[in-house]
Structures are given as structure tokens and as C-alpha cells.
């Protein structure tokens, strides 16, 4: 990717991830739509021999497709064909070849080789490199035009772990089912037992609450944030006003003198004409004009085609309340600009009020050092965690908006069949893009800290994440509202990899801890055995298990308003969580930073000081949460517990909810 290595502080800091001789040997397994092996992002110059432990292969590709960068490529389509019938080989490659682009984008984001002069039609130009540019990549094609079927996903995960991947990256989700019925959660549990870190996208169902996917505590769940880069475009109206939007249009510009502009709802016979759905625009009403369309229902890029095919000269695509002011860029085929909800309303009211409304669109190219950044992406799925409310998710956010990375040679940048353009790099958005950022960072950390468990790697990324802007300390904002975001939006915060490599303390977890968590959820022996392959796992009859005992790097406390008396004032309810931290740095004494404050809740940490004399030493502490009185159901309050030894800060978000 371009820009995100700088944004994450990685560029020029390669030395921070000491070459412990294993970094290059961490293999990131990407379960997605496959790979375009001819992309320069899989160039293997400077990489050593493939690790001798590697058992992967390149099936369905000629052997030259794989090299010391792309060291494995497999495809799994039996479940897909069993469900959908034989695939159409004229449209889909019966091989790991990426017919879509998504898998090439995600795998190169995680561990692509540096490629100078990368850009999309001149936008976002720079040297594109993966988060772990020296890690190896193995792709497991489990997603097809018709979707990603869990029997194929499980087969792909099995192969990836058996081949020797150290990190699995899955930018896919299927809603949050119970862990014992969620194939990704099942595969991820067993992968964790085999010391493999599994990183998954949190979902794009935001900004509504309780919309997360992939919330199993043994999975690293990644939300999306924006970058300090934009692609501004100006919608200049006939009344002289102009509004800033976003555009990746690189073709023949519109004339600088404004041309007629029409709102799609007034150029259609359809009741949903405002959405510019296929077949709904009247050519006689849009020909040669700029058309204002509203986002929703159909893909943004498809709206551009609908306007172009109806003879429109350009498009202004307006956000709805759900997307707020978030500007997601698309490589439209006609002059187009996406605008925020406010700007869209202003433009529509001008179009409605002026007897002869006119406008033009001026594309301004790539702009960097945009602030404030990051914002939580409006589309990024949000907590609370509906499967287990006592586990705070997402874990972190990472760059996921307008990300440039490698693309397939089989589809155009919009992905639509009508788009015959071919590009080497494309700019797309989603938690699909933020997940491989974290997968690549996890590979960097695994290479630098090979002794760390997957849980310790995740803990390091969480406890060093930031939730405020550097300098002025204001909280990270939510693009959907423009207001401060919360841990339900960003989890522990935005990843900060240069600090993650020296986190000071980690919250470690192993398979037995997660089984105890399942025991607390009252899983039956059969459900536990289906998830956890080890036969030795069982719940002890005489033991009391608690979900909040899971040694997670964050806190989520759930009060039931049902416990409060008629007057709504529950007797002060105290909930106590215990945590154990492992020192992974030098000797030091950690103290609780500023007193923890959560509105309406008294937080008491004991002890307030933890002294470590050697690396590997473990210490425990308790946090007691006391709510003086009950709050209305649905209330949430947030805080942050920070331990510090003067050199490291070990931060944990706190979410308290009343249900």
C-alpha cells in the first residue's frame, strides 16, 4: 500500500523490528479470492530461500507463478460447486488465480514487496509495500463469484495451518453466530491451538451498533479507520458556491463552465429514482447533465455506470445519514464526486430551488497530511459484542478507507463487468483492507518476537493502540457522527506498531484459558470438543467459571437493569475482574496512570503498583467496578485503564453497559 507505512510510522523504522532471522520466514496465509501472481507486489528480489519447514504448494498455477515471496497458492471450490453446481470456467478460474481483485489487494497489503511508482490513474502514487514487506505470502482461494462457503473456508484454513502459515488473514464474515456454529471461529480456535494468529475483519455494517462479525475472543477483530490522505474534488454550483467531495476520476474533465445539473429523483419514473438504480433514469432528462444520486441499495460504482449509460455527463453521489461525512473514493468511469450528507443536502436544495441549476466538478488529485486522522470509518461495524457482551470488540482499528494496493488483471477497478479498464493497483475501502494491515503487522511482530503467543501479539497491538490524537489529546472521532468515538467503535484504539514491538507488559492467553471461557458460557462437552480438538479439555464439575475471568486486554462490564429495585437504584453493584500481565521487557515498576474514571462507576484497581524484576515474570491485579445506581437500559460508559513504568504505557479500554 502507499501512505499507510508512513501513517503507521513504519517507513524508515524497519530497524525497530529487529531482524531476528525469522521475520522473513513468517508466512501470512490469506483466505480470499486468490492472487494475481504477475503483480510486481509478489516480486521476490532480496528474499532468502523458502523456509525448509514450509509444506505449501502451488496447485493449479504453473510453477513460475510462485517464488520466494508468493510461496503457496491453493484453491478450494468443492463446497462452492456442491452448492451452486459446476462453475463457469469462462468466468472463473479453476485455480488460485484472482478473478476479482480482492485477494490480490488484501495479500499485497499484508506482505507485498515494495513497488515504486505505484498509483491508480495517478492517484495515491508512491512506493507500495506490504506491512511486512519481507514476510512470505500464501494464498488460499476460498471465495468465488458466488460467495465464500464455509466447507471451503475450513478446508483452506486446514491447508494453511498444515502448510506452516504463522498468521491467517480472513477479510470475510458471515454475521455473528454462536462460536460452535461459526466455521471461522471453529477453524480459528484450532489454528490458535497450533500457535497461529488469526486476524479477521470486523464487518462493514456500521455505523449501527451491535453489527460486528468475527467476535470470537481467540480471533483478532479489526475495524477500519481513515488515513491522512484524501482525493478532494469540488462541486462548483452555478450560484458560485462550491462543496468539497472526493473523486478518483482521471478521464476528460468536465468543462469549467457549469453545465445543467438534475436530481435523479426528478429524472426517473421510479419511486426510488434518487438511488440511480439500473434502468431507472430517463435519458431525455439526464442527457448531457450532471446527475445527483443518493447512496444506498446498489453499489456506488454501479450508480456511475447507470448515469453514464443514460447519457449523463457526470455524477454527484450524496451520502445518507448513515454514512455521514465519510468520503469513500471510487474509480468511476465518468466525472463524479462523492459528497458528505451535509454537502449533498445543500446541493440538492440548490438544484430544487434554482430554475436553471448548473454545476461542474473539479478533480483536485491526491492530498496528504489531512487532519484530523484517523477517524473511525462510518461503515466500520460497531460493538457491543452480541455473542458475548462481556468481551469488548472490535479489538483495534487500522487503515481501511481509500487503500491503494495491488489488483487483478482480470477485472477493472470498479469490479463491474462493463469496466474494461485494467490497472495494476486499485483504491478500495472496507474492514477487508484494515484486517490485512493487522495481519501484516502481526507477521512483523511474530518475526521480531517469535516467542510470543498469538494472544501476546494481539495484546501488544491492543495495549499500545492510541485512542486520542497526538498533540492535542482529543479523542478519535467517528466519521459517521463527527463526534468522539468510543471503544465500541475502535476497541483499544488505532494500531501503533512501532510501540507494539516494545509493549512492556502483555495479557497472555492459551487454549486452556479459552476452554475455561467456553465452560463459563456453559458449552456442553460435545460443543467444546467440536471447537477444541484436544480431548483433554473438559469443564470441572466443582469449579465456578466466569467469562470476565478471561485474561483479555480490555474490559467489558455488563449490568442488568433487571437487578435494580423499583426506584431504579440498584444496590451498589460491584463487579471484580482479575487480570494477569506478563513482563516482556526489562525490569520495571508499573503504576496505574491517572485514576480510572468511568462516568457513574467507581473503579478500584488493586494493587496500584506492579514491580517486575525479570522478563517473563507474571503479576496479577484486580479491577472492581461499582455502579452506585442503575442506569436506563442501553446506557454505556467508557474509560481507560493505563499502567505505566515511565517508558511503556499499557492501556486497556473499559466499557460498562446497562442492559
Amino acid at each position: 500500500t502507499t501512505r499507510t507505512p508512513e501513517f503507521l510510522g513504519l517507513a524508515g523504522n524497519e530497524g525497530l523490528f529487529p531482524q531476528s532471522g525469522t521475520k522473513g520466514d513468517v508466512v501470512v496465509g490469506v483466505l480470499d479470492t486468490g492472487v494475481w501472481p504477475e503483480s510486481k507486489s509478489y516480486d521476490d528480489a532480496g528474499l532468502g530461500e523458502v523456509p525448509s519447514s514450509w509444506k505449501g504448494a502451488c496447485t493449479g498455477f504453473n510453477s513460475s507463478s510462485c517464488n520466494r515471496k508468493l510461496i503457496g497458492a491453493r484453491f478450494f471450490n468443492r463446497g462452492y460447486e456442491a452448492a451452486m453446481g459446476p462453475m463457469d470456467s469462462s468466468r472463473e478460474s479453476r485455480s488460485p488465480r484472482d478473478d476479482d481483485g480482492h485477494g490480490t489487494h488484501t495479500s499485497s497489503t499484508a506482505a507485498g514487496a515494495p513497488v515504486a511508482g505505484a498509483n491508480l490513474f495517478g492517484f495515491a502514487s508512491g512506493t507500495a509495500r506490504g506491512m511486512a514487506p519481507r514476510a512470505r505470502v500464501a494464498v488460499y482461494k476460498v471465495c468465488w463469484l458466488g460467495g465464500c462457503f464455509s466447507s471451503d473456508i475450513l478446508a483452506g484454513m486446514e491447508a494453511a495451518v498444515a502448510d506452516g502459515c504463522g498468521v491467517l488473514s480472513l477479510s470475510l464474515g458471515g454475521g455473528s453466530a454462536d462460536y460452535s456454529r461459526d466455521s471461522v471461529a471453529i477453524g480459528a480456535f484450532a489454528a490458535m491451538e497450533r500457535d497461529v494468529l488469526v486476524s479477521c475483519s470486523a464487518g462493514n455494517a456500521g455505523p449501527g451498533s451491535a453489527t460486528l462479525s468475527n467476535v470470537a475472543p481467540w480471533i483478532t477483530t479489526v475495524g477500519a479507520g481513515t488515513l491522512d490522505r484524501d482525493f478532494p474534488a469540488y462541486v462548483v454550483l452555478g450560484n458560485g458556491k462550491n462543496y468539497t467531495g472526493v473523486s478518483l476520476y482521471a478521464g476528460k474533465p468536465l468543462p469549467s463552465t457549469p453545465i445543467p445539473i438534475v436530481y435523479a429523483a426528478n429524472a426517473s419514473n421510479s419511486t426510488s429514482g434518487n438511488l440511480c438504480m439500473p434502468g431507472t433514469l430517463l435519458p431525455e432528462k439526464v442527457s448531457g447533465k450532471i446527475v445527483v444520486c443518493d447512496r444506498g441499495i446498489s453499489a456506488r460504482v454501479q450508480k456511475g455506470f447507470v448515469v453514464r449509460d443514460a447519457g449523463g455527463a457526470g455524477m454527484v453521489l450524496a451520502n445518507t445519514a448513515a454514512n455521514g461525512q465519510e468520503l469513500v473514493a471510487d474509480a468511476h468511469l465518468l466525472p463524479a464526486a462523492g459528497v458528505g450528507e451535509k454537502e449533498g443536502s445543500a446541493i440538492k436544495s440548490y438544484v430544487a430551488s434554482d430554475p436553471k441549476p448548473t454545476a461542474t466538478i473539479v478533480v483536485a488529485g491526491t492530498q496528504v497530511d489531512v487532519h484530523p486522522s484517523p477517524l473511525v470509518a462510518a461503515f466500520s461495524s460497531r460493538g457491543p459484542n452480541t455473542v458475548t457482551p462481556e468481551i469488548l470488540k472490535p479489538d483495534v482499528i487500522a487503515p481501511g478507507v481509500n487503500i491503494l494496493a495491488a489488483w487483478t488483471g482480470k477485472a477493472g477497478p470498479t469490479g463491474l463487468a462493463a469496466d474494461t479498464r485494467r490497472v495494476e493497483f486499485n483504491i478500495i475501502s472496507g474492514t477487508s483492507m484494515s484486517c490485512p494491515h493487522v495481519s501484516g503487522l502481526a507477521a512483523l511482530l511474530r518475526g521480531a518476537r517469535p516467542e510470543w503467543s498469538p494472544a501476546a501479539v494481539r495484546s501488544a497491538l491492543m495495549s499500545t493502540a492510541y485512542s486520542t490524537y497526538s498533540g492535542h489529546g482529543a479523542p478519535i472521532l467517528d466519521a459517521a457522527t463527527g463526534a468522539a468515538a468510543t471503544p465500541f467503535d475502535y476497541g483499544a484504539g488505532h494500531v501503533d506498531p512501532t510501540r507494539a514491538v516494545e509493549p512492556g507488559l502483555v495479557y497472555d492467553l492459551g487454549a486452556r484459558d479459552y476452554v475455561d471461557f467456553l465452560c463459563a458460557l456453559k458449552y456442553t462437552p460435545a460443543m467444546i470438543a467440536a471447537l477444541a480438538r484436544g480431548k483433554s479439555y473438559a469443564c470441572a464439575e466443582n469449579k465456578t467459571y466466569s467469562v470476565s475471568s478471561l485474561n483479555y486486554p480490555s474490559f467489558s462490564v455488563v449490568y442488568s437493569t433487571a437487578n435494580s429495585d423499583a426506584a431504579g437504584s440498584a444496590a451498589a453493584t460491584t463487579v471484580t475482574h482479575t487480570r494477569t500481565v506478563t513482563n516482556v521487557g526489562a525490569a520495571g515498576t508499573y503504576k496505574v496512570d491517572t485514576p480510572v474514571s468511568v462516568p457513574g462507576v467507581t473503579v478500584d484497581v488493586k494493587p496500584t503498583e506492579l514491580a517486575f524484576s525479570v522478563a517473563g515474570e507474571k503479576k496479577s491485579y484486580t479491577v472492581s467496578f461499582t455502579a452506585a445506581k442503575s442506569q436506563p437500559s442501553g446506557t454505556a460508559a467508557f474509560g481507560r485503564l493505563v499502567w505505566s513504568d515511565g517508558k511503556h504505557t499499557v492501556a486497556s479500554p473499559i466499557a460498562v453497559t446497562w442492559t
Partner: protein
Amino acid sequence: TEELRATYIVHMAKSAMPAGYTEHGEWYGASLRSVSGAKMIYTYDTLLHGFSARLTEREAGDMAAMDGVLAVNPETRYQLH
């Protein structure tokens, strides 16, 4: 008419394999054949123990009731994010 078939993922308790079998795959196959004429789509033996196959709802119910079967989960279609 052929009852509707769907793909199910069958989780088996590896340690419950009857003595008569030397290979888990044999046991899985025999278990499948005892309730259905369907072909096996995949067998799994690294991250989980079991297999996937196209079963009718009734066959899935019969499978779930068999000894050594831990769970019979209907296949899920996941979407790219």
C-alpha cells in the same frame, strides 16, 4: 421428489473411532454411508475432525444422533468485507 439437500459440516469425536477402523477417513465414510448415499465433499483432520457432505434435513438429523458425532452444522455462506 428428491428432498432438498444442503451442505453440512459434521464434527466427529476423533477418540470415539470404533476399534474396527484403522483410518478416521474410513470411519467418516462408513458413518456417512450409514445415513446417506451422498458423496463426501471434504474430510478434515488438522483443525477439526470430520467431513462435509450434502445431506437432507432428515439425514442430518440421523447423523447428529449417531455415536461419535459432536455436531452437524449447516454450511454458512460468508461475504467479503
